[in-house]
């Protein structure tokens, strides 16, 4: 199965911008479950210099310099990505085994120094947006956890509680709204819920990372899907020693399966902000974003074969 993703971002500046450096993180990383087949990045005004590379976490990144004076900057990305449904299903099966690991066992294992654990440990640490431990948030999360209980099931329950206790309200928060404020108001958007979950689970000593990406949305029954009705999305993943990373989507209370497409991951939003720019000589800027995710079922080859066999 393929996804075609269209992602366009437009910035408007109050003054002329004549020289701007940008970091763009809009090319999805390859994972065992997804492979980028086609990718294009363009801007208006046009790119003067561009180079792509991978960051410390292995996410794709483009450094882009634009030198044509402009008031508006439009960044357009088209991606085609193949989902490996078999691998996704295998990972779902693996989760069934991972459920055996209790919270207590996980904590013990995180003290060891196996290579995968050492790498995971950086996701236990405070990070730019998740700096301090909020004791009330810790109390809130702790009621779902005990040393003897399955870590996976506890996290799943906790995800459900965020889903039920928090209200999805856009406009309440922005990038800089602290986790405590979101937790206190019990409202925010996907990015806030991911941050709340990460902060809470880290306060329990767990390794948790932030995942940015897209989610396929379906139109209400019987309606045509409108182009551009999608949005970028964010969720979190937890490290279960011996089994690896498992994703949870608290905004929708689901365990990501084949409708979630990963852009990249990091300690929090700061590591994977989609577009970061430094512009010279501009005042504030406005941003508008259009995202579209369209599914394309696998080419007919397999199907026609199976048909001919039947």
């Amino acid at each position: 199965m393929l996804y075609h993703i269209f992602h366009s971002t437009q910035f408007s500046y109050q003054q002329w911008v004549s020289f701007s450096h940008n970091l763009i993180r809009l090319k999805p990383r390859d994972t065992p479950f997804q492979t980028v087949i086609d990718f294009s990045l363009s801007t208006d005004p046009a790119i003067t210099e561009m180079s792509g590379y991978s960051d410390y976490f292995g996410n794709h990144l483009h450094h882009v310099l634009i030198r044509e004076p402009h008031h508006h900057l439009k960044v357009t990305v088209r991606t085609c990505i193949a989902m490996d449904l078999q691998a996704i299903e295998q990972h779902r099966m693996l989760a069934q085994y991972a459920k055996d690991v209790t919270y207590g066992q996980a904590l013990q294992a995180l003290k060891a120094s196996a290579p995968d654990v050492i790498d995971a440990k950086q996701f236990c640490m405070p990070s730019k947006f998740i700096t301090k431990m909020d004791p009330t948030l810790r109390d809130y999360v702790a009621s779902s956890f005990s040393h003897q209980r399955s870590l996976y099931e506890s996290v799943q329950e906790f995800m459900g509680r965020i889903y039920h206790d928090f209200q999805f309200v856009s406009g309440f928060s922005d990038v800089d709204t602290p986790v405590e404020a979101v937790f206190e108001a019990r409202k925010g958007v996907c990015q806030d819920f991911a941050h709340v979950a990460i902060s809470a689970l880290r306060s329990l000593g767990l390794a948790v990372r932030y995942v940015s990406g897209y989610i396929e949305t379906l139109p209400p029954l019987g309606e045509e899907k409108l182009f551009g009705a999608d949005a970028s999305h964010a969720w979190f993943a937890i490290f279960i020693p011996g089994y690896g990373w498992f994703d949870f989507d608290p905004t929708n209370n689901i365990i990501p399966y084949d409708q979630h497409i990963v852009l990249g991951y990091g300690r929090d939003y700061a590591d994977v902000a989609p577009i970061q720019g430094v512009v010279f000589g501009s005042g504030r800027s406005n941003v508008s974003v259009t995202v579209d995710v369209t599914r394309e079922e696998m080419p007919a080859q397999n199907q026609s074969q199976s048909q001919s066999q039947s």
Partner: protein
Amino acid sequence: MIFENYTASSYDEMFNEDGTIREHWKALAQNLETLGLQQLNVKQKEIDWRLEDNGVTYNVYDDPNGISRPWRLDPIPLILEGSDWDRIEAGMQQRAKLLNLLFKDIYGEQKVLKQNIVPSEVIFGHSGFLREVHGLYAHLEHPLMIVAADLARGPDGKMWVIHDRVQSPSGLGYAIENRLTMNSAVQTLYSNISIRRLYAFYEDFKSMLMKQGAHNKSEPLNVLLTPGAHNETYFEHAYLSSFLGLTLVQGQDLLAKGGAVWLKSLKGLRRVDAILRRLDESYCDPLELRSDSKLGVSGLVHAVRKQGITMANPLGCGILENLGIHPFMPKLAHFFLNEELILPQIASWWCGQEKECEYVLENLSTLIVKSIDRSDNQSGTFRGKDLSAEEQAQLRTKILENPHLFVGQEEVQFATAPSLVEGTIKPRHVVIRSFAITKDEEYEVMPGALVRVGSSDDSLIVSGQRGGSSKDLWVLGESGPVVPNNAYKPKATFENSLENIPSLRAENLFWLGRYLMRCIMSARMIRITLKSLANATRYDRQGNLHAQEILCDTLSHLSMTYPGFLAEGEDKVIDPVAEIWSVIGQNDRVGSLHQALNMLSNANTSTKNLLPLESWRIFDRMMREWSEYANDTLPQQRTMISGLDSLLVSLMAYKALIEDSLFAQQGLILYEIGAGLERAQLLIAKSRSMLTSVYEPFTEYEVLETLLGSSESLNAYRAHYRASIELEHVSEFMLLDSQFPKSLISEISHLLKLLPKLPKFKHDIYLSRYEEPLFEAFSILRLSRIESLCALAPNSVVRENMDALLASVSNKLIVASDELSKTYFAHYDE
């Protein structure tokens, strides 16, 4: 016997425990005795005077007495035996080697983490670990080019490492300045003492940077990147850059593109080979590092990624200043070098380990607890002895919340050395900042150091920021013959030519000219208006009142403090003197004289190091007097006028000093262009307000006389016209007369003469973009005739031709200024 009352409570550098003088101090002791205490104090005064005269300062943040504090140097040096030093040297070399290997590993394979030599939290939990530069240094053998460490002698008589400084260690400039000052001020103390010289080390430092010049082989362009004049060690940045032949730049002077870093100079962009970095790494690039940094260069990390720039020291090395690494240094020495550490360290326990954390918590009252991260700006050091029970409990909670962020250290009594304190010699704790640099695949250690002296008896805190003193370090022994290093001698004239002036400096000089003229001309206009208001009661004629209104309106136009006197209805000015006082002294009012002075003050700060010391003094005194003056709520007119008088005297003296002492090659031309543009614009503003409307004869006379007076042109006019003051004559004189240097046309033709001296000027068939508007302005003025400018349409009360001409010239000046900025200061189109 000048050491009679000297008693040290801990290990002393000079005295044995039994009170006898250590062998290697005997010659100095003799020299000090010969000199005598009284003469030693005289020497101290001479040193103070020399340092102040050289402008050696240490800027102290949050100091109510201004930000500059004079650098202090003790006339008594610290002496170390050659054999003692050899061991320190070997220890520093080992430490530098070790830190370099650790640096390469952290930003490379991370074997020390994978093999659990260092717990990963020590690295991951420290803000100095910059993921952005991971993998960028694999091609370099010695990315860590400069290693400094603070050393102090422990109770066992051995030199211990207190901490490492690699980010952008300060002290090299102060150390050389200390040595040069000692050489000239206390020659007598050197009698019968032979010490190692510093010359070769500084020459090697220069070569180390010059060798990075792979891109401009014959003339590498190396810069010293400073956070700016407000930084605590800015003196050192300016001093070192000139000592080492580096161009002193701020982030705004540089630009990153094409995988390289470029210096914006008046000639255009020039490729930079190496940066000696004195800016903290997190501030170096707002794109990839701290996004709130205004001091960095956007895209700098990417230029490093593309291997287009060398930095000493490299970005990311802040992780090595991490105290959490200390407990693991012996293990690391085994791992990387298979050696024991030569220089011992203070016993320390990293709280990220359970047992160690328990130990620290149990011994909180005797240990010193430090945060492993210096960058979080919180007070990072807690001395157990000084904490109350409650404070201890708070600290305990803090540690338990984030154990990996803390280390506990044993409290150690470090050695003292004799120091001249308030006229007598007393023991003071000393800390040695030692430096090592890369040379031929090895590390070379400076045979000297910056020694910092504690400010009080028991103070272990030895910090320039807290007002301690410093010493020169004398290492006994001989130095080889000095071989001047000609290979990389920078040409003396090179950085002095106009074309190599960094654009930011050029821009600041340009604005220095503009704001200085703005201040002078506004102050004059305000003064003359106040005087005219003060005369009101004497004549009390309608015409006089009208003239005053026009002057007041002119003041609003000139300063652009709209609506001001132009307000109608409810906002109409009732008390003109109060309104004028607001135009003078209201700090937050756009266009006020106070604001212009603040802008001038900024321009002065940024160009200070080009200007003579007298100008600093005049400026400082002027600003002090001004802040007293402007603080008044509403002084009497007389006081207002006399305050403006003294301001103008200072401004004129300051102006004369600038014009007298700055070379054209240092950028005086930019100051002149700025000043010329500003004078022309302000003259236009005055003329439009005072010459273009038709008034009653008496009013007109008053206004014309004021226009001439406020431009200090009255005498020149009288000498020229020998006639009464008439509108046509005055207009002709002030606008069109090329013989009169203050006329508008003269100002513009002067600007046209200056432009060809700028570096990018092309003697082309066509005019450049910034020259064109000035040439047009000159032409339309030159082609004007005064009869036509003064002509009035039937029933009109405004001389429309003149107003249109002035408006058009004004617009052309604005375009010229913008184009000039684009070409010489911004360079975005190159």
